[in-house]
């Protein structure tokens, strides 16, 4: 876990790859109670809505970039704010890379602002995000 004193703007947060399988996607949609067919019905998603495959839920991918922050801070800081923007869809089978970078640090409040991203295999940022954490 990072020490507040050692954190510098420009530091990279550990990144992580996610490849959701159909079982994980089913569990997620069951957990949040989401019956939207584009997330589990391949024939519907491709034939009726014209998607190239089953669509990954935006908030699931938002959670993946949130984990970049929560895994980084552990119990050394609390999450003050977190946001993400759905810019581009991703589909079942795609490997998405979640990561982030320290943007700013405030000594007085012990708050750190990080920029976050989810990228697809082509290197396109599909979901940018940001968070503010406060160190103890």
């Amino acid at each position: 876990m990072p020490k507040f004193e050692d954190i510098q703007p420009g530091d990279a947060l550990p990144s992580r790859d996610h490849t959701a399988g159909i079982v994980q996607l089913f569990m997620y949609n069951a957990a949040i109670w989401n019956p939207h067919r584009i997330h589990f019905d391949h024939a519907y998603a491709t034939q009726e809505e014209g998607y190239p495959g089953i669509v990954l839920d935006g908030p699931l991918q938002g959670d993946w970039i949130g984990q970049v922050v929560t895994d980084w801070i552990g119990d050394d800081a609390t999450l003050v704010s977190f946001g993400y923007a759905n810019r581009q869809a991703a589909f079942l089978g795609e490997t998405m890379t979640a990561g982030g970078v320290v943007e700013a640090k405030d000594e007085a409040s012990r708050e750190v602002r990080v920029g976050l991203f989810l990228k697809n295999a082509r290197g396109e940022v599909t979901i940018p995000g940001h968070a503010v954490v406060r160190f103890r």
Partner: protein
Amino acid sequence: MAELLTPEIKARIGTASPAIRVEVTRRDIQKYAVSTGQRARKYLDGDEAPPLFHFGYSMEILPPEQLRKDGIAEDKLIPPLPLKRVMAGNSDTAYHRPIRPGDRLVITRRLKDIYEKAGKTGPLIFVVTETEVKTEAGEPVLNEITSLIAR
């Protein structure tokens, strides 16, 4: 640009959905944690909920015959819009304290704003909603602002 938003649509700004009351269980947190691939023990054990755990609580629980053909429950907070292609937009949350098992929460969604803008390829309608999560005792838990774009 012609006004797409009628007075009837704009009159809905400021309205709220009926409050949703939930009792948070450890099992619900564990299901969410496993399904999102969490690594932190406190989430996997269900001691504390991950930051976006509350998202599922705004899903209305309806029998299949009351859902639209695409499986979605109609969002009664948002009036029918003259532009039909809706894209998921942004989510921004301010956190006051974590959600834990045993919490009794009251969740309220409000329609904060609907406005239109000229986009490069035509008009856009922005729909901004706020989700407020408090405990039954009134302690603030989180406030989330979400926006949708219709084109």
